[in-house]
């Protein structure tokens, strides 16, 4: 036990919190399933439907990568925060000397690890099964994933404030996640999408993220030509961070 670091160093405490979060993650089969099996199932399903059309596969892989960023951060954090809040775990932690920054660093690092693992799986699957090769622009890929993680993690924490109890979490999260994913996939894939739908999708953070990932993974067009997309995601991130911090509640919702 590193008692020399105990109770003092916020960095050491972040690290301990992170390791605890990892351990809990692997011990929770449903979380592991949603994080790793689900994108693979989507990839496999999409692959079967789209058959051998390489153009479609080129779009499928970055779209699933974008969805993975959203599910490992927005969805996972909304669920976790509501669960821990309603169960009283957050309140208990609030009563200890664990610094708030250490707690959230550990929780966020856990989500980022899951995103990184999932992106790695999707990239690997793209290379091995879908013939899209290694990403063209690694740096651009990392930038888009990082900005996407910050954005969707912040939005996930902020969205948790809206969810009144754990029982309704799935309904609330899916009411956002599914429409956003469908609209974004549709607009990204189809040049014939109605104009108003395109406007909506491009104002939401997922389509710009998928466009950026598409550029980085498939076309190789540079980051400089995708600053607009980056700005949209970053603006959502700022919006998310503001409400994540402002409305944060450590305690059960009182009725």
């Amino acid at each position, binding site marked *: 036990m590193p008692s020399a670091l*105990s*109770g003092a160093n916020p960095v050491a405490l972040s690290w301990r919190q992170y390791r605890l979060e990892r*351990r809990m993650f692997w011990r929770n089969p449903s979380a592991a399933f949603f994080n790793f099996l689900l994108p693979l199932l989507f990839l496999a399903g999409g692959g079967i439907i789209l058959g051998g059309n390489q153009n479609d596969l080129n779009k499928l892989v970055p779209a699933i990568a974008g969805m993975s960023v959203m599910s490992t951060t927005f969805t996972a954090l909304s669920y976790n925060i509501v669960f821990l809040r309603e169960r009283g775990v957050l309140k*208990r932690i609030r*009563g*200890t*000397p*664990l*610094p708030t920054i250490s707690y959230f660093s550990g929780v966020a690092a856990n989500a980022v690890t899951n995103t990184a693992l999932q992106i790695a799986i999707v990239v690997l699957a793209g290379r091995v099964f879908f013939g899209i090769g290694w990403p063209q622009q690694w740096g651009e890929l990392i930038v888009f994933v990082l900005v996407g993680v910050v954005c969707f993690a912040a939005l996930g924490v902020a969205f948790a404030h809206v969810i009144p109890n754990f029982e309704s979490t799935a309904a609330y999260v899916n009411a956002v996640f599914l429409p956003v994913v469908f609209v974004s996939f549709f607009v990204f894939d189809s040049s014939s999408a109605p104009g108003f739908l395109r406007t909506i999708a491009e104002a939401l953070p997922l389509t710009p993220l998928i466009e950026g990932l598409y550029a980085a993974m498939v076309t190789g067009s540079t980051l400089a030509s995708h600053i607009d997309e980056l700005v949209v995601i970053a603006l959502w991130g700022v919006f998310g961070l503001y409400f994540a911090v402002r409305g944060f509640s450590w305690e059960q919702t009182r009725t």
Partner: protein
Amino acid sequence: MSETAPVIDQDSVPSPAIEVRALCKRYGEYEAVRDIDITVRRGEVFGLLGPNGAGKTTTVEILEGYRARTSGEVSVLGHDPADRSIELRRQIGIVLQSGGVYGHITPREALAHWASFYPHPREVEEVLALAGLQEKADVRSRKLSGGQLRRLDFALALVGDPELIFLDEPTTGFDPAARHAAWETVRRLRALGKTILLTTHYLDEAQTLADRVAIVKDGRVLAIGPPRELGVGAAHYRVAYRDSSGELVERETDDPTALLHELTEAALARGERLEELSVGRPTLEDVYLELTADA
């Protein structure tokens, strides 16, 4: 209304663990806490006793730093809990009325993690023993029973070796054996010199554990003092006897000496005996029921 205006002792007595002056907490129109004064000395077990909704938890959660007060002065181990300083949280242990734990880790893992928050934690093994959790130390928490989870609540609050421990209704929902085990833990903590602030709506719990008790209702302290002395001045003595016609007479008084004198003198003057004469001292239960009765 508080008849026991606290006296601040300026002498060599160590500063109290908790000092509360004119504490008020309002939620909109509703006044949960109205002008509470409490002093908890170091090393004592202090009980906040009252019915549900009396303001006990609100008061304790202000002291723990969970709630902001509307007005009044509060000092906990020399800190204002509203500042939420890490220094203060290192010295207190909190057992919440209902607090969740991570389901996928074991009590041993949870305690090791919690211990790392504190500068001078107790040994995990020792805390497991103190809470009676050795046999369940390596079972995932989600598989623990309600009573075992409550023991884990205790253990997590104690692992930092706190000076001051808050216990919010620690035995609600316990069976008798579990209650006595919890009481034994509290006594052991007291023997270690810890200060304990305990809320309860069980009279026997307050009577058994607390050095001093404050009876709280509707956000006010109605009486404060050691459980055995609490009756004095706050409730009536009951003097009973059977008169010459054999009828049972009961009289209540604040001053049993004077009443007995009066009764016995009159009886002697009439040449009678006061059959079955008894003087009843009010129990904490009498005091509690009288003070917390509606209207």
